[in-house]
């Protein structure tokens, strides 16, 4: 396929947390607000005068100092973020809006709070409580948390306009971005997709790590390009897969899968777009903040939700995605030492095969994986097994 015009630019933007667009926005006098988890609604951090940055630690190697603080028995995502913070890589942040949603990222953010790591006198870190259930009174609980621990400190400490009107403006911009990403992502549903998983992951990631208004023009142009992009005459892949699992902000992991012969057509993982790029709907009589709270609880498919129906629904959601995106199999990945996904991966691996007949490749990974020979072998074997299965089905027919 013809190269996308801005792809190299997107890739370059992802080489630093404090990238070119972040620097530009800071120079314009805007506030950089960091976060790590989907449960911290990015739309609230994109209020006028601010922009959200979902923290990544690109080009990480060995997080030595962070390992002293967090041992080598915690996930490399949390440790790499702390290492980057200790190196001064997040000194551009004006605040960290934190969630106590998984243990290690919570501990990472607590280090920001207590160790005075960020060299910015204005910097503060505030936490919210996120319910482990959806429905009933949880929306109000969550809304109240967002109001008191996100909007109130932003207003009081940084002077941000957090009025309903400002929120609606942010939501409108957010929805435009979601529409664009959804449209771009839809090209993955085609019989012969005109975008690769690697390309899509770059695009999705820049939307999380750059000021929205500055990245939007590039996305619009990319969407127009994709409308006329022709697929390769001979596909470069041997099967299509859905990538599900825990935190993954490493586009080279997706590339590793694709280099092994599987096209990644859907991304259901933290930092992915499914879910995450659905438009926020403000219902009649609802405040903008209430709509945000409802939206983020309803759309999340995080394994920390404990309602019995929700635990079961998550498996169906994956199977539906696999069908919608015409995936031949599912790769369920789990960041080493992530307890939620340790269990969820096991259950997904059993249920998707047993109840939905989907082939599953179940793996553990580190934060940086691009050159992992072991994973490459696993993916190649998985691709071969899917091919054999297809051949057997053709034989039976």
């Amino acid at each position, binding site marked *: 396929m013809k190269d996308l015009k801005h792809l190299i630019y997107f890739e370059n933007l992802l080489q630093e947390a404090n990238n070119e667009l972040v620097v530009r926005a800071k120079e314009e006098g805007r506030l950089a607000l960091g976060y790590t988890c989907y449960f911290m609604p990015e739309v609230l951090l994109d209020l006028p005068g601010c922009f959200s940055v979902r923290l990544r630690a690109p080009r990480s190697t060995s997080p030595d100092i962070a390992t002293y603080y967090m041992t080598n028995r*915690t996930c490399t995502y949390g440790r790499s973020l702390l290492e980057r913070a200790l190196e001064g890589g997040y000194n551009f942040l004006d605040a960290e809006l934190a969630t106590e949603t998984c243990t290690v990222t919570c501990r990472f953010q607590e280090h920001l709070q207590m160790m005075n790591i960020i060299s910015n006198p204005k910097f503060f870190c505030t936490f919210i409580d996120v319910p482990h259930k959806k429905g009933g009174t949880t929306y109000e609980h969550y809304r109240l948390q967002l109001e008191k621990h996100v909007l109130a400190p932003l207003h009081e400490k940084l002077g941000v306009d957090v009025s309903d009107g400002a929120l609606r403006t942010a939501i409108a911009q957010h929805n435009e971005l979601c529409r664009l990403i959804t449209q771009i992502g839809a090209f993955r549903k085609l019989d012969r997709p005109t975008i690769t998983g690697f390309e899509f992951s770059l695009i999705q990631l820049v939307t999380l790590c750059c000021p929205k208004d500055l990245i939007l023009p590039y996305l619009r142009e990319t969407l127009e390009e994709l409308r006329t992009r022709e697929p390769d005459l001979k596909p470069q892949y041997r099967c299509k897969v859905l990538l599900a699992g825990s935190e993954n902000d490493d586009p080279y992991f997706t590339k590793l899968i694709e280099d092994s012969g599987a096209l990644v057509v859907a991304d259901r993982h933290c930092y992915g777009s499914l879910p995450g790029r659905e438009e926020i709907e403000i219902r009649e009589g609802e405040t903008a903040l209430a709509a945000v709270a409802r939206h983020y609880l309803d759309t999340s498919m995080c394994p920390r939700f404990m309602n019995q129906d929700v635990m079961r629904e998550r498996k169906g959601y994956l199977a539906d995605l696999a069908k919608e995106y015409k995936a031949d199999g599912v790769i369920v990945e789990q960041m080493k030492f992530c307890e939620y996904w340790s269990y969820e991966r096991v259950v997904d691996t059993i249920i998707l095969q047993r109840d939905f007949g989907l082939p599953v490749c179940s793996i553990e990974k580190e934060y940086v994986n691009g050159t992992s020979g072991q994973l490459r072998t696993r993916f190649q074997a998985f691709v071969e097994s899917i091919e054999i299965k297809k051949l057997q089905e053709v034989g039976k027919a």
Partner: protein
Amino acid sequence: MRKLPIKIPESLKKKAKDFWYGKPHGERRLGELYEDKTGLYKHREWRGVADTNYAFLVWLRAVGVAGKLALSVPVPVVRALLRYRWMSTYLTGIAWIDRGNEGLHGEALRASMEHYYAMFYDSVRQLISQFRADSHLRLGVKNLFWYKTLDHDETIPGHLFYGFPEAYDDILAQLTTCFLNPHVCRPTITHYIDAVESIGLPADPCPLCAAEAGLCVLDDYPDFSPVFLTTNQACDGSVGTSIIQDMYWNKPLYAMPQPMRFDDPDVQQFCIDEIRGAWKFIEEQTGMKFDMNAFKKKMAAYNQLTRFEREKWDVAANTPYYPVSGTAQALYRIFYSEVGERKIWHRTDRRVKALMDRCIEKQLRPFPMTRHRALVWSCAPLYYSYFPTWLYNCWGIQVVMNMDSLMSDKVVRLENEDEMMEDLAQLFEWGPMRRMAVGGQQHIFEIWENYEKFHCDMVIMFDQVACKSMDGIHGVFEDEFRRRGIHAIWVPHELMDHRTVERAEMRRAVNDYMATVMQEEPLDPSLVEIDDSMSW
């Protein structure tokens, strides 16, 4: 009259004295009591006439309680022994009491053994209740007990079920089937960890949660209730276990997660709603009605236990007369606070109070060889829960208090229902481990305040290698110990799985520190190096 020239040799006098009172601490050589490798006792410990008789009496009472189990549900017990692998644990149950109280004398022996006996007694009660209702032991037939028994996660305290007097019993699903196993007989639980790892779970999540999930995988939980109530306590792994439980049990499940940021007044309503939601769920699923008066009555009784617990802490903190060993304190506290109100706790507390008052009144030091007063922080090794007993016997390190004792100490106000619900929520939120481990780093650093409060000069810092919450804050502890000049001994372990860190390795961490940093000699050199690698 002339006196007969009979002179009793000093050695004989000494032998007579040792026989009557037991040998003094430095001469006991407790390590020589064990058979090599298995750690089995060659014979019972001689503690002097009175103390040996007392210990033997408790042993007899425990045998009687075990006999009660066998006689009250004889057929189900035999079937359970054949059906559930974990049941073999309890064949060694009485030895657990002996090990936990090794080397103790006088009031320390009595107070600590009372705690152990109470736990043993209540474990038997729970086993009887489970087996009476267990459909697995009745060829799948669900009897009346099955419909009237409530099954809940061991981290949901029994308080929440006081309002269902119609219920035959409420049982903590994992307490006797999983949690107690490594305390009593450590090899039985590792099989379940292997079972869940065999379906793909990595080896790094919390082994307690993994073992709980392993029991599901092997279908080794008794089936004694139409419902199950679960929670997110104490960590992410507990949430994961609930996913496995739902997949394998496939019965109505109510999750009642607690808020993480529990200091925040705004989160209390959520917790209250969850408690009320759980009551409603039980009513809908079982047809039993919630009775507020019954609830308040039992809660009032439970409040007495909490008040006495605080009194114990006060004596432990401010005097050398606290008669409860570090081992008994830690276990009993977590046990009764999770099980909830039962008569046995009151009986035990009355006896312990009498012993404690006697120690204070007569200024008796129950642990006379104390060289260091230690605070234990982080989660303790379940397969070596009597580690504090070893610390005292070998090195004179008296564990005054431990982290998990310092939780759930809320006295619930009962006059006003709103206040009551607020307090109940907080009591629930302050559960074991999560009281210190979640909700902000300020909780885990309550160590400094408690270190001062309990007048300690040493910290035994348990390093549970699979605990992400504690691992995630390890370095700050190191920094602070150095900055504050605190003697802290890091003792690694893996909670349930002794294969990762053996007991000998834990002892070695202490031996090395005491010999090199503290430059002290052991009180009982026979305990420094023991080979108990094949022990229970």
